[in-house]
């Protein structure tokens, strides 16, 4: 045993030494790449979820990273570990002379509003929430009518379900979560109304605003157990609105066989290749694109306090292609979804949610 340890330690040391044998890079002078925004500093504060939440913090950070790469600006990202960190984090970014400070989530509304009032020279943007004060010239909310896309996904889910039962659940009952569930439930109801069907939704009651939640955005086992419960009750399409916890539901669906998943935030067919074969569609929310557009407008000096609202019309939200399920989704459902989309864009059909900002 000792010999093995020694051998392992030795080979480890050799590997380390060899790894350290790379050649030194040439000294390079002044290799600043794309500029134009070289003096521009864009900053972002996460909420307590952190930038690795596989959800909106991460999407926001990706948008900022893209702006850094493509516009050649400087970026600073700070994570908050608790709500008490918001104000100090925003303050430390102001101190850093950031030109634009982006906060992720309604949790930062208070801190960002106060900073925007105190620092009229700095521009602020807030994802998923409005500011708490009216008439701030330097504050731009980035909002998403997520319920419109979830509505379409609910319609597709109801139209595809063989068992007549679909389900949804959330991580924690927050407006940014329940807005998905509201739209989903309404979409199913619309399908029932149009087709005289009786598809039931498990896990969310829009009227009462109550439903199933796993209690966090971390524990995939909870998502798996909850999804198993839904599958046992006959659900064959599940939409988990819980960031990485949703992957637990995907695992349960894969195990069960003929159950499909509706992804959220991004196209899960692309982002979760392990489960691509069971992804019916995804409710996409283009936070990254909204952040990128906001940063580039700000770099060009075109920042405005006009709220950005992601809708089906401007592709700020949408549903992903059906990919593997293209042949499974009935043609009349596809046509109906296109029609509904057109109606929503034209304003003939309004999808409402109490969680809408």
């Amino acid at each position, binding site marked *: 045993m000792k010999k093995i340890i020694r051998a392992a330690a030795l080979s480890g040391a050799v590997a380390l*030494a060899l*790894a*350290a*044998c*790379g*050649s*030194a*890079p040439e000294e390079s002078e002044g290799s600043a790449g794309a500029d134009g925004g070289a003096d521009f500093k864009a*900053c972002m504060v996460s909420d*307590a979820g952190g930038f690795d939440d596989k959800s909106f913090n991460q999407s926001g950070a990706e948008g900022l990273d893209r702006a850094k790469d493509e516009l050649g600006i400087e970026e*600073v*990202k*700070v*994570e908050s*570990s*608790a*709500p*008490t*960190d918001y*104000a*100090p*984090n925003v*303050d*430390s*970014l102001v*101190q*850093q002379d950031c030109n634009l400070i982006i906060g992720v989530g*309604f*949790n930062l509304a*208070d801190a960002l509003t106060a900073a925007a009032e105190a620092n009229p020279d700095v521009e602020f943007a807030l994802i998923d*929430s409005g500011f708490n004060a009216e008439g701030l010239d330097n504050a731009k909310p980035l909002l998403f009518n997520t319920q419109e896309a979830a509505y379409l996904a609910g319609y597709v889910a109801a139209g595809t379900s063989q068992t007549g039962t679909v389900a949804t659940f959330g991580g924690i*009952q*927050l*407006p940014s979560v*329940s807005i998905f569930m509201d739209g989903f439930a309404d979409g199913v109801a619309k399908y029932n109304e149009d087709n005289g069907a009786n598809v039931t939704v498990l896990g969310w009651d829009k009227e009462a*605003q109550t439903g199933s939640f796993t209690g966090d955005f971390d524990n995939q086992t909870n998502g798996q157990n909850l999804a198993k419960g839904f599958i046992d009750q006959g659900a064959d399409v599940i939409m988990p609105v819980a960031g990485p916890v949703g992957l637990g539901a995907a695992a349960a669906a894969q195990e069960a066989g003929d159950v499909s998943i509706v992804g959220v935030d991004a196209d899960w067919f692309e982002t979760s290749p392990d489960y691509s074969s069971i992804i019916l569609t995804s409710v996409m929310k283009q936070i990254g694109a909204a952040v990128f557009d906001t940063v580039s407008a700000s770099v060009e000096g075109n920042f405005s306090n006009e709220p950005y609202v992601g809708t089906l019309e401007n592709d700020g939200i949408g549903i992903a292609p059906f990919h593997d399920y293209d042949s499974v989704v009935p043609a009349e459902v596809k046509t109906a979804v296109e029609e509904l989309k057109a109606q929503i864009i034209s304003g003939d059909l309004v999808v409402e949610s*109490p*969680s809408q900002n």
Partner: protein
Amino acid sequence: MSQATPAPEQPAGSTAPAPRRDDGIEARAQGALREMLTSSWLVTVCALVLAMVISGVLIAAADADVQDAAAYFFARPADFFSAAWDAVWGAYVALFQGAIIDPTASTFTRAVRPLTETMTTSVPLILAGLGLGIGFRAGMFNIGAQGQIILGAIFAGYIGFAFDLPPVLHLLLAVIGAAVGGGLWAGIAGFLKARTGANEVIVTIMLNNIAIYLVGYLLSTKAFQREGSNNPISPPVGGNAEYPLLLGSGFRLHLGFLLAIAAAVFVWWLMSRSTLGFQFRAVGSNPSAARTAGINVNRVYLLVMMIAGSLAGLAGSAQILGTEKVLTDGVAASFGFDAITVALLGRSKPLGTFFAGLLFGALRAGGFAMQARTGTPIDIVLVVQSLVVLFIAAPPLVRAVFRLPSAGGRGAAPELSAPVVKEAAA
């Protein structure tokens, strides 16, 4: 830090704190030096230094430039060392500038603001730490400050935003509410211990969980939410209920800091000058002996928890009436657990806890700047804090590293060891 009265909590056979008789100046000086070298204070400082050194290694290891330079270490080792130095130095300079004073700031206000931020952040740590310290000295390992802070915040917050009262009265009521809330919550653990002998460690930990879910539940009710909003966040407390700012609107430093100083003085008086404090300490060193001596031990358990809880509740008031002004499920952050560390670092004494709270407040306040300026993960601050405690818990290790004379086999924290040993035996 020698005590004027013979303290009952000194375990038998420990060395006398300092020569008390006049044995000549030289003997006194020698005694003083020896006390300084063997004292826990030097160990504390050394532990801090050691923790900073090890954290420095971690900062360097986590730095992208250092990792790049390590790949061609043998080709140009100087790169590696300069990158490592830059990373560590940069991070600690940012920590200092974020916690004490920032000479690079554009205005005087911004330059001195970091120090006031440190003081502001330290308020809940000091208040909760003082409460925990009383418990430790009375032999009770109270882990429940987190829940007690939350309860204090709920009471103070509700009084703060639900009512509209005249200036001084509103603040006074909210602060009293916070103390009552925290005191009652901790009192549950004290009552259960006194009546049934329930282990206060387990009860307080469980009460923490209940408090976290309680605030989550309350924030889902209309009474605690803002009008027209579903978000789990309360309305801001009324202006009359807020702690007045001490230095004007450019700073967040509020009256709570003076409250923390007053609380430290009160705890010193309570523990060192009052009969009740004597009873607390007697129970802490030996409950059976205290009972035999005629002290009502059960009453002491209840009182200790209630006083400790009230102080933690005041820490909650510092959050909700001082800095946050709204109730959220994260209003207590991790202050309740950090306060345990603060109390241990401060040896459960008021003055020690006060400075330990300031130190941890500085680490927290500086951590924000460290993250924003150098990209050092804020978790590194947590590592520094944890390492400090780790080394303080292992004084022989620190003495060995710095070759300090041994303290004659005496544990560095005799008062702490008492409850811990008791828990192990229970």
